[in-house]
């Protein structure tokens, strides 16, 4: 693309395209629904009472604004740039996922839907969805791969406590992508009463835009908080990326601030040169899956391949379409971090800051441990601390060979 864009925040176009990516690749049965979600969403965002209710719930139910915290000991240890954490892990349910779950359930209620479905991998989005469904008294079914149910038992039980039905998915590889297939199958079968709360900035238009908009509160708050703390914008933003909801949430309000560098960290698993990783931008190719055109892990026949990451939340063979566009526009840098680097950063954060980060977030932390020492002390970095790691202690113990 030779024509330089004037703005990085105006997409998508009316058909949901970010450049060549995004769109609405769904079966015809779903098309009228998807168009209706878009129409209702646009109306809701023009309605002051909808926005007021969203703001109020964010304040008293989610606990926003989340603090911007100077990670002083981590900064000292790394001996370079000044590192701040945007504390999304302090939100109700312990991660950023609640931001888009609240927004979507308010829309579902406004559309008169009585039943909620969601897909989940690690269970964080499933828990967030089950939480808001309980809060608003709507029936909730969460689709989760049988393999993930086995490795994320605490979250499965949390969802049950919250009144959701967790439906095991045994088709395909029994992981997140299959859970999403199953959610789409349920949605097409229950078109009249069901709203699908998608857990990331992917899926058919308007989901990538809608989830981004609900998550952008992270970046808007960060901007104001950094102005207050340092009197200027940060120099570098860093976030982990699977589907990409927390990264886009932090980055989006800064995209037109050309001097602010944005780095998204993908999961390299055992390494991007192996067949066990989840780095769709670093190691994927263009394709169409789950309602959008994006980069995918696939073979030469267009068959989708298994992703791998130690972090179940990054274990998905695709990425949100806006990220692909930002990558091709060279506005956001995409790097990757392996399982073992993430594990090391996980422990480093626990011990230097007294914060147990999610394994997803630990990928972004690992990149900071490489980058910060190379930068001057006045350089300001913001890490999106997207989730807390209590859910991951079993995985980490296992990886470290410890019995708990």
């Amino acid at each position, binding site marked *: 693309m030779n024509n330089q864009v004037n703005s990085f925040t105006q997409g998508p176009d009316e058909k949901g395209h970010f450049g060549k990516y995004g769109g609405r690749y769904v079966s015809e049965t779903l098309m009228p629904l998807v168009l209706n979600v878009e129409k209702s969403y646009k109306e809701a965002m023009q309605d002051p009472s909808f926005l007021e209710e969203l703001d109020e719930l964010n304040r008293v139910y989610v606990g926003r604004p989340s603090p911007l915290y100077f990670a002083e000991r981590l900064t000292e240890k790394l001996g370079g740039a000044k590192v701040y954490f945007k504390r999304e892990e302090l939100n109700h349910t312990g991660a950023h996922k609640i931001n888009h779950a609240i927004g979507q359930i308010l829309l579902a209620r406004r559309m008169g839907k009585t039943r909620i479905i969601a897909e989940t991998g690690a269970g964080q989005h499933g828990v967030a969805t089950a939480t808001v469904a309980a809060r608003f008294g709507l029936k909730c079914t969460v689709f989760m791969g049988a393999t993930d149910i086995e490795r994320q038992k605490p979250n499965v039980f949390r969802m049950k406590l919250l009144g959701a039905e967790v439906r095991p998915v045994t088709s395909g590889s029994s992981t997140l992508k299959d859970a999403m297939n199953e959610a789409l199958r349920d949605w*097409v079968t229950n078109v009249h009463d069901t709203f699908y709360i998608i857990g990331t900035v992917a899926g058919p238009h308007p989901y990538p835009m809608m989830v981004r908009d609900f998550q952008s509160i992270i970046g808007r708050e960060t901007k104001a908080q950094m102005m207050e703390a340092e009197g200027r914008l940060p120099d570098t933003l860093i976030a982990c990326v699977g589907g990409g909801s927390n990264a886009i949430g932090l980055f989006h309000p800064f995209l037109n601030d050309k001097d602010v560098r944005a780095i998204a960290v993908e999961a390299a698993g055992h390494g991007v040169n192996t067949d066990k990783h989840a780095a769709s931008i670093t190691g994927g190719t263009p394709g169409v899956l789950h309602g959008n055109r994006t980069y995918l892990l696939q073979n030469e026949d*267009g068959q989708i391949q298994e992703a791998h990451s130690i972090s179940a939340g990054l274990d998905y063979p695709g990425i949100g379409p806006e990220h692909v566009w930002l990558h091709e526009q060279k506005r956001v840098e995409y790097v990757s971090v392996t399982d073992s680097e993430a594990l090391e950063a996980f422990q480093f954060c626990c011990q230097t800051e007294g914060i147990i980060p999610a394994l997803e977030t630990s990928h972004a932390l690992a990149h900071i441990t490489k980058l910060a020492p190379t930068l001057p002390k006045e350089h300001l970095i913001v890490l999106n601390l997207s989730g807390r790691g209590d859910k991951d202690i079993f995985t980490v113990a296992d990886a470290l060979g410890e019995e708990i």
Partner: protein
Amino acid sequence: MSRLETKFAALRAENKAGFVAFITAGDPDYDTSLKVLKGLPSQGVDIIELGMPFTDPSADGPAIDRAAQRALAGGMSLKKTLDMVRAFREDNNETPIVLMGYFNPVFAYGIERFATDASNAGVDGLIIVDLPPEEDEELRIPANEAGIDVIRLATPTSDNKRLPKVLEGASGFVYYVAVAGVTGGKSATEGDIESAITHIRQHTNLPVAVGFGIKTPEQAAVMAKYADGVVVGSAIVSMIEDGIGDNGALKTDLVDDVLNFVKTLANGAHSGRNG
């Protein structure tokens, strides 16, 4: 005239609905699948829908999903699906073949190259279930230029506002998805089908085939009263699955059993307008 036009004209002349049989290419393996494919026309199948296996068939129910996974496990690919069509055309140049599947394998193959290769292999139509009218231009135009129809789907959610969008640019026939749901699920009632097909015919002169949830010769006969074509997929694919033993070995009468079942379905569809 295209094979599809010729076929529908012949059916109309006989006042019969056509029978459309779906199988997944390469299920459970290439050779068995080709034997079934080649046997279909002599059982009364008027049009063949050949599934292009995909790892993530999110609009299909468990039967067709498993068929795709079996085919892929056996090494099936889009290139081999076209090989299979070519092999079929060696001794059949009349029965239309419509490829059905998802966009990603076609996209990975290369759209222009796919349109050319599919046309040369003897493909007549395409149903790409995750390519709604808003997104299908990049495939529809090269496919049409290569002489391949892109079949559009109308559904129970296609209201008066949506239907014209679906029909604009449609060719070959219109596929009416009888129920909101995935393949192999619940069945539509006769009343639903009668009113839906009447509705579609007010907007188009294209033939209308109906599929989803049709499993028995009796159901096929009922649908044939209203539709120009009756599609059965999951029930046939399940017969193929039944022909696989617990140890994975194929039962010797798999192909015969499937073809005998297909014959009863075809007879059902063809008899629909006699009663």
